[in-house]
C-alpha cells in the first residue's frame, strides 16, 4: 500500500547546524504517529518539513501524491488550509478573537459564510465541552481549554493530517490527559492522520507507531499499538 505521506532523503540545515540528515519516512492514512527524541534532535524540523512549513534543502515530501517540497509558498498555504491542521504547545490562539471566532478562521479562509462558520465552530466547541467558553478571549481560558480550542480550530476544516507539536507539553497531567483523549477521539472518528511530537512516553503510548529522531536521523521506529 502506498504511504499517505512519504518523506525521502530529507536534509535540512540551519547555518552550520544539520537539523535533518537524510530521513526516510512513510506514514499511512489515519495513522497516529508519535515523534520522540531529545531536544535539538530534529523532531520539529521534521514535522515542519512534512507540513510544508519548512522547505528541505534536499529530499522530497509527498502527501497524497502531491510533492509538497516542490510547491511554491502560495500552493503550500492552500495545502495547509485544506489538508493540514496544527496544534502547538501554547500561544497559538489569536489573542484578539474569542474562542469561537478563533475556530471559525480556517472556515472563513476557505470561503465559508460567517454565519455557517459560527454554527460549525459552535458545534466543535460543543463536542469538546467548551460551549460555555465560546465567547471568551484566549487570555480568559485555562491552558487546557485553550488547547482544546486549538484542537477544534485544527480539525474544524476536516484536514487529512493533524500536526501536533507537544500539544500537552504545557499542561498538568489531568488536563493533558483530557486534551489528548479528546484529540485522539476526534482524529480516530474522522480518520485523520496525526503526527505528534512529544517527550512524554505516556503520551506516545497512545500512538499507533512511535518514531525516535536523534541527531537528525531516524534512530528507531516502533509499532506501539495502543489505540
Amino acid at each position: 500500500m502506498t504511504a499517505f505521506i512519504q518523506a525521502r532523503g530529507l536534509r535540512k540545515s540551519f547555518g552550520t547546524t544539520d537539523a535533518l540528515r537524510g530521513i526516510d519516512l512513510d506514514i499511512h492514512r489515519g495513522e497516529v504517529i508519535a515523534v520522540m527524541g531529545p531536544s535539538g534532535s530534529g523532531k520539529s524540523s521534521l514535522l515542519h518539513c512534512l507540513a510544508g512549513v519548512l522547505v528541505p534543502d534536499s529530499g522530497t515530501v509527498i502527501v497524497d501524491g502531491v510533492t509538497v517540497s516542490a510547491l511554491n509558498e502560495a500552493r503550500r498555504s492552500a495545502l495547509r488550509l485544506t489538508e493540514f491542521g496544527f496544534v502547538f504547545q501554547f500561544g497559538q490562539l489569536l489573542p484578539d478573537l474569542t474562542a469561537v471566532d478563533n475556530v471559525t478562521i480556517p472556515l472563513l479562509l476557505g470561503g465559508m459564510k460567517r454565519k455557517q462558520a459560527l454554527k460549525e465552530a459552535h458545534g466543535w466547541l460543543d463536542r469538546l465541552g467548551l460551549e460555555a467558553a465560546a465567547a471568551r478571549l484566549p487570555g480568559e481560558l485555562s491552558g487546557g481549554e485553550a488547547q482544546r480550542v486549538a484542537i477544534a480550530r485544527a480539525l474544524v476544516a476536516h484536514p487529512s493530517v493533524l500536526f501536533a507539536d507537544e500539544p500537552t507539553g504545557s499542561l498538568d497531567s489531568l488536563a493533558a490527559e483530557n486534551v489528548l483523549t479528546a484529540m485522539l477521539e476526534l482524529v480516530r472518528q474522522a480518520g485523520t492522520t496525526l503526527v505528534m511530537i512529544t517527550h512524554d512516553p505516556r503520551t506516545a503510548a497512545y500512538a499507533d507507531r512511535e518514531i525516535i529522531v536523534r541527531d537528525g536521523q531516524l534512530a528507531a521506529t516502533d509499532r506501539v499499538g495502543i489505540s
Partner: protein
Amino acid sequence: MNPSIVRLAVVGSRASWGRLLGITAGVAVGVTLALLLWGAYQGLDARDERSSWMSASGEYVVGGDTSQRAVTGDMASLGNDRVLLAPTTDRHEGVRISRFDVAAPTTSGVTIPDIAALPQSGEYYASPALIDRIARVPADELGDRFGTLAGTISDSGLASPDSLVAVVGAATSDLIERPTAQIVTGFTGPPYRASSNYQTVAIVGAIAVLFPVLLLVSIVTGLGAAARRERFATLRLIGATPRTVAAIAAMETAATSFVGALIGVLMAALLGPVAALVRVDDGAFFPADLAVTPFAAAMVVALTVAASAATAGWRIRRAGIGPLGQTKQPQEKTPSLLRLLPLTGGLGLLTATTLAVLAGLPVPRVGTLIIIGFTITTVGLLVAGPYLTLIAGRIMARRSGAAAGIIAGNRIRRTPVATFRSVSGLVVAVFMVSVFAGAATTADGGVIPVAGPGLLPVSTLIQYLEPTSDAADPAETDAELARLAAIAGVTGVVTVYRLDSGPDAGRLLLSADAAKGLGLGAVPSAPVVSVNSDVMTGATAVFTAAEVTDMAALTPSILLLGTDGSTAAIERARTALQAGGVFATGWAPAGTRTDLADDRLESMAASFATLAYLGIGVATVIAGLSLAIATISAMIDRRRMLALLRLLGMNFSGLRRIITLEAAAPLLSVMVLSIGLGFLVAELILVGLTDGGRSVGWPDLRYLGALTASAVLALAAVAAAASRLGKNTDLAAIRYE
C-alpha cells in the same frame, strides 16, 4: 546598577541594535524638524523686525493740510524733521515690488535705518534682488521707473533676500498729489506684518507641525515594545525589581534619545540653509533667520531626552512586567464617550468666542482664546480618536464576513488606543489641512479670471486715476496718450470715465468706438456707452447707450492699455505709465486683472494659505513616516500571530488585507470627522478674527492635492509595512518565539 546588565539588556541582540537605531533615527528626525520649526517661527519674527521701517505711516496730506506746518509743493516746507512718503505696491512680471517714494530736503534729519541717506529726486535705493532684476531686463521694462541708483538697501532692512524694495526720491510737488502721500517723522513703525492675526496664524501653524513631530517621537520610542517586555521579564526572573527594569528602560531611551537629539541638532544646522530657501510670504529666509541659539537647541535636547526617558520608564512600570512576563495580553481600558468631552470643549470655546465677537460683545484677547480653543480641539481630536476607532472596530468585527476583516476588527476593538496612535499623525495632518484650506478659501477674490467672451483680457493694463488728474493740461494729456499708444506691443489706449450721479451713476463711460476696440461684445449705436464697473474685476461686460454724449467735461477715471499679451509689452507699458507722470498719480501703479486679483490676495488669507501648505507638507510627511514606523513596529510585535495565520493557510494577500484594514478603519472613521471639523474650526477662527468679515468657501485644488498626498502616504506606509511581511512572518516564529 551594573552597567554590564544594562548593556546586555539593551543591546543583547542584533534586533536590539536595529530597534535602537530606529529610535535614534526617529528622534533625530523629530528634533531636526522641531528646531527648524522653531527657527522658522523666530525667522518670521526677525523678518518682521527688519522690515518694520516699511510700515511707517503718518498723516495723509491729500485733501489739504491745514495745520500751521502745512506742506506745500516747496521741499523746504517739510523742514528737517518730516518726510513726505507715498508707499505703493508695484509689479514686474507678476512679482510685487514694495516701492516707497519719498521727498525730503537734503538736510533732513529723518533717516531710514538701512539706507545711507534719503534719495533725492531722480535717485533711488533698491534691494539687491531688485537691482539684479533691473540689470536683467531692458530699462524701458523696469529700470526707467526709478531713476538713478544711489545705493543698496542692506539685508538688515529686508524681510528676505528675495524682497523687491525700492526707496525712490521724488519732488514734494509730485508726491503731494498722490493719494497715498503722508507725512512721516521717522521710519520706525510696528513690525511690518506682525499683526495679532498673523501671529495667531503663525502659532496655529506651528502647532500643526509640532503635533506630528511629537507623535513621531512618541511612536519611535515605543519601537519593539513586545521584544523589550520579554527581555525585561527575563531580568525580573533573575531578580531585577520593577524599579530596576523601569530605570533600565528609561536609561536605554535616554541614551538613544540623546544621541538622536544630538544628530537632530546637527541635521538642523546642516539643513538650515536648505530650509531657508523655502519661500514664505515675501520670499526665502536669510540662513541666519533659521539659526536657533545654542541655549534653545540645548533646551530641545534636554526636553526630548527627559520626556522620552520618563515616558519609557512609565510605560514599563505601567505594563506591570512580572518574572513570568505578561502571561495575559495587556488589556487597554475601553475608551468611553467621555473621550469626546475635550473635543466638545474646544469647539465650544471657539464657538462661544465667535458668537461673542459677532454679537459685538467686548471679548479680550480674541487671538489667545482662539489659539486655546484650537489647541484643545486638536488635542480633543486625538483624545476622541480611540473612541471612534473602537466604534469602527466593533462595526467591522460584527459586519465583516471575511477572516481578515474579523481579525482586523477585533484587533482594533481590543486595542483602539494603540491602533489610533499609529494613524493619529495623519489624522491631525488632515485636520490641519482642512483648517488651513478652509481658511485659505477666504481669498476667493484671488481666483484669476479666465479669458472669454465679454471679459476684459488679462493682457490689458488697468490704471486707476485720481481726480487730480484733471489738473493736467489737455494738450499734455493727449501727448501722453499718443506716447503710450506708440509703445511697441501696446494695441490701444482707452480713457474711461465714471459718473457719480444720474442714470449712469456707478457705471463706466467710454466712447462707443473705444468700446468696440476693446472687443468685449455688442456695443449699442450711441456716441458714448456705459459698461458695468465690475468688468475690471472679471465680470462680463454689458454695454448700454449712455445719456451723456460729450465726455470732454468729465474727469478721467481709468486708463486702459491693451497689449499684445507679451510680458515685455505689459512691462513697457507699465513703466511708461509710471515714468510719464501724468497718469502716475493713482493709489497704485497699473496692473492687469491678474495683478489686481493677486493684490486682493495680499491679506491675512494669503498668510493662512502660505503657512498652511508649508506646514501641511511637513506634517503630512512626518505623519506618513510615523504611520509606516508604527505599522512595521506593530507587525514585528505581532509576528507570531501573523505567522500563525500563515500556518493556518492565510496567504500574504490576506495578511496584507489585515494590516491595511487596521490602518484604514481608524483613518477613514476619524478622517471624515477631521475634514468636517477642520472646516468648522476654520470658519470659527476666521469669523472670530475678522469680526465676521470673512467666512469659509470651497477649497481649491491644492486641498485635494494635500488630501491625495495624505492618502498616497498612508498607502505607501502600509505598503512599506506589507513589504516586510515575508521577513516578519517566518513560520518558525510560532514555535521558537
